[in-house]
């Protein structure tokens, strides 16, 4: 975007009389649908992700009912799934598998990858680095529409005869490759693969754009070491995505070949449905390697943006600089690098060479060090602060809490000897839901509450925000903490029912406990949904810089103008964390304020 363009547009806004002649540029379609403006695309990503998250949550609600009260009849199951999959209100086992699978896929990819990065990278990268827009608005637009199509196809699979994919979100072959193995591996699996391929295209279009924009479009004075930590997190996330998503695409392509064209990349020596298959010489382990080569960086693709948002929100609302800015950048980079050499810890039990397992134990446990540094830095940022409890701040503190709790159990799972007995049990489910599911959702909510005034120019209701936070936070621990013990009692994940084993009969009350909190969590999200859509139109109007923040997005006018700044782009003179700096008359110093004589930038004073 050129400077001229921005000025031209703001001109149109300022004088409404001359607006008409530019009307072709502001048509409904180009402004709200096929928009190339990063602000609109960001809102499109957010609204899509909120809807997808709600759908995925409904799925978990249905299978949680089955897990707590197996065999009981629930009118809502019949109401939503019909007689085919919910006859008399009892969930059918194949549908249970499908719900678990699509819940995982939608949450991991559509909500926490597309939704989280798509919303906040798009919103904040141009705003916080002082750019008019993304490097390529057109690619950005394509990124959203591929994402939209991919989400649509993923959900559409519920409306086909054989139902959606149901081999777990990791869709390991041969289960996912053989239509004879289960109904979900028929057409539903094709939908899954098509949807994921489109998603990968979307993710690459977005990621390349983020990287190029951060590297090339920073405004004058915005050196890499003056970037807010949000941008550092989005930048490293985009690099991880660009390096790892193509590997998933190759895994998906080979799976498509095995499914439809008779190749044997993943298949060997299989006898199924009364027939010996021709395929020989392949290995399903190859798929696992390819999948987890994306799959592990993927969990950091999910959590890093949430941590980036948290860094900013904790600093702003503690009215203190983020503690250890450079150490934070260092740990983001260390986590990013290490995330590529730990994928084997998902595969200790596959029959992989035990020595190779040892190497992965070492690299995996190394990641705990930069993660610990981040957690300590957040805690120290609160120390001696003057904390303002916006709903966003509550969610950010919640993230730090769950990131620690979930991260710590990772130490058990990273240890191959200990993994033997907890691998694929509910212990794993508890671990990853707390450390990346709940944490990333809390981070995303924090971001929504904090930047809502920037996105929709209005505030969300704070009281409903408080209710939303406490309800979500309490039920997150209520749901996922007891799951550790199910795992330690030996309960495998992805079991439709535990009633086939008398040894699990004394665990029923734990499942009822978990489901009760899951229902509470779902109800509280309705409060959020209401607050979100209501405030979008009726919330109190926001000021330009409601939180007293230093970063550049709060220097833009309170209108969505094309090109972000009506005049020249702002010039940056300092790092973004000068909060409560001694000798200043207010407790924040925006990045655009020049350094005073003798003032040291970057935390010295």
């Amino acid at each position, binding site marked *: 975007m050129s400077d001229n363009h921005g000025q031209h547009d703001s001109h149109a806004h300022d004088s409404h009389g001359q607006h008409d002649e530019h009307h072709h540029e502001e048509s409904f379609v180009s402004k709200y649908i096929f928009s190339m403006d990063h602000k609109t695309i960001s809102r499109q990503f957010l609204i899509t992700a909120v809807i997808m998250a709600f759908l995925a949550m409904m799925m978990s609600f249905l299978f949680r009912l089955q897990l707590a009260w197996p065999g009981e009849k629930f009118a809502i199951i019949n109401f939503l799934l019909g007689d085919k999959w919910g006859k008399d209100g009892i969930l059918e086992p194949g549908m249970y598998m499908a719900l678990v699978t699509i819940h995982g896929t939608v949450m991991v990819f559509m909500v926490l990858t597309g939704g989280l990065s798509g919303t906040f990278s798009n919103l904040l990268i141009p705003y916080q680095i002082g750019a008019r827009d993304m490097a390529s608005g057109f690619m950005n637009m394509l990124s959203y529409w591929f994402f939209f199509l991919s989400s649509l196809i993923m959900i559409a699979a519920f409306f086909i005869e054989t139902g959606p994919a149901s081999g777990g979100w990791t869709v390991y072959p041969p289960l996912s490759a053989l239509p004879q193995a289960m109904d979900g591996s028929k057409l539903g699996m094709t939908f899954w693969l098509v949807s994921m391929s489109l998603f990968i295209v979307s993710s690459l279009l977005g990621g390349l754009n983020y990287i190029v924009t951060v590297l090339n479009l920073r405004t004058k004075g915005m050196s890499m070491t003056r970037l807010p930590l949000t941008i550092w997190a989005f930048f490293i996330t985009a690099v991880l995505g660009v390096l790892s998503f193509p590997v998933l695409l190759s895994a998906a392509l080979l799976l498509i070949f095995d499914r439809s064209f008779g190749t044997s990349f993943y298949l060997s020596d299989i006898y199924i449905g009364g027939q010996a298959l021709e395929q020989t010489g392949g290995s399903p382990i190859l798929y696992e390697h390819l999948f987890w080569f994306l799959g592990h960086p993927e969990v950091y693709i999910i959590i890093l943006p949430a941590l980036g948002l948290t860094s900013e929100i904790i600093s702003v609302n503690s009215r203190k600089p983020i503690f250890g800015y450079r150490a934070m950048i260092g740990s983001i980079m260390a986590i990013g690098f290490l995330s590529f050499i730990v994928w084997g810890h998902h595969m200790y039990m596959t029959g992989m060479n035990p020595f190779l397992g040892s190497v992965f134990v070492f690299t995996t446990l190394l990641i705990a060090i930069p993660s610990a540094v981040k957690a300590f830095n957040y805690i120290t940022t609160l120390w001696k602060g003057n904390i303002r409890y916006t709903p966003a701040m509550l969610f950010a503190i919640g993230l730090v809490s769950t990131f620690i709790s979930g991260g710590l159990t990772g130490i058990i799972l990273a240890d191959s000897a*200990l993994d033997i007995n907890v691998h694929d049990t509910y212990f794993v489910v508890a671990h990853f839901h707390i450390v990346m599911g709940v944490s990333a959702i809390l981070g995303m909510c924090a971001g929504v509450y904090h930047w809502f005034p920037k996105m929709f120019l209005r505030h969300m209701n704070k009281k409903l925000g408080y209710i939303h936070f406490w309800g979500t936070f309490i039920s997150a621990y209520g749901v996922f903490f007891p799951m*550790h013990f199910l795992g330690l009692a030996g309960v495998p994940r992805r079991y439709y*029912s535990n009633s086939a084993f008398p*040894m699990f009969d004394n665990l029923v009350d734990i499942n009822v406990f978990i489901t009760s909190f899951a229902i509470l969590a779902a109800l509280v999200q309705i409060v959020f949904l209401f607050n979100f859509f209501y405030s979008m139109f009726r919330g*109190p109007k926001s000021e330009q810089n409601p939180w007293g923040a230093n970063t550049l997005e709060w220097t833009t006018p309170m209108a969505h103008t094309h090109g972000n700044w009506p005049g020249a782009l702002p010039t940056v003179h300092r790092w973004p964390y000068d909060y409560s700096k001694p000798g200043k008359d207010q407790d924040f110093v925006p990045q655009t304020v020049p350094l005073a004589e003798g003032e040291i930038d970057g935390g010295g004073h």
Partner: protein
Amino acid sequence: MIKFLVYIAIILTALAIGYLVRVFELASSLKGTKPEEITEKDNKLQAKLMLLFLIVLLGFTFWNLIEYAPKLLPVSASEHGVEIDWLFNFNMIIIYIVFAITQIFLFFFAFKYYGRKGRVATFIAHDNKLEMIWTVIPAIVLAVIIIFGLRSWNKITSDANPNSTIVELYAKQFDWTARYAGADNKLGKANYRLITATNDLGMDSTSAEGMDDIVVKNEIHIPVGKEIEFKFRSRDVIHSAFFPHFRAQMNCVPGMTTMFHFTPTITTADMRKDPFVVKQMAEINKLRQEKAKKEGRVEKPVEFDYILLCNKICGNSHYNMQMTVIVDTEADYKKWLAGKPAFYAKAAASKTVIAENK
């Protein structure tokens, strides 16, 4: 009709919340504050809730540890499992201490430093000494964890003793079949193309080592105090053989053979007498009786058994793919095995029977 009522209820709830929000906003504007402004009162309330949450969190997690302990797996019934349990507890103690300390700091700071008018936060951007300390200490603790972990891992995954008893576990949707190697302790060759209705494992009749192999379903017996080497194969999709009581697990992957070996240390009969197990089974039977009574069924009490279950999603009946594992004394095991004819002996016998019937 019900659908209609559901929709109406949803709409009415939304409207009700909407009006409540309006009332809040009007109330705060009457008081002269902006509804979105965060007041000192808000800060104070949230700070108190933070402290309250800390207490609830520590209480809840600790209660979980105590309350659920009797529901967990009994003492390990294998030699290496005892070491795994020790290592697990060792790690868990470290983890719980770190968990408690960090959460206490987090929520206590959140409580103590809530925003007040006229207070200014202290401008501290970094502290090299502090950062060095909290990088080095986790590194040392992790080094200890890694060393202990890998020592156990290397021991558990080292090559099996050449004298160990070889048992093959063959997985398919949705059951397990076991094959004992027989007197020569060598498994015969098998090929998936030879699978027929009577030859489930695809055993190769030209393989001399397979002549004495014994094929068993539903239940396997293994001798106590003797190392067993399990070899795993799968016919269709990936399964995972999980023996929770023995702290043993290995995936069964079509196209390759995987292995895991362990030595059982407690017979099924002895485990049934273990006080922890006795108590646990009493509770389980009580719950089962209650449920049966409610459903109007008569239910026999169940006894404790070691179990092998599938732990890798393998299809719709994944949740019910199991096999009972019985650990016998050496003598009982030999007696049980002697009662099982070799696969080919059985096959020959049944052919004779068929021939005679003709």
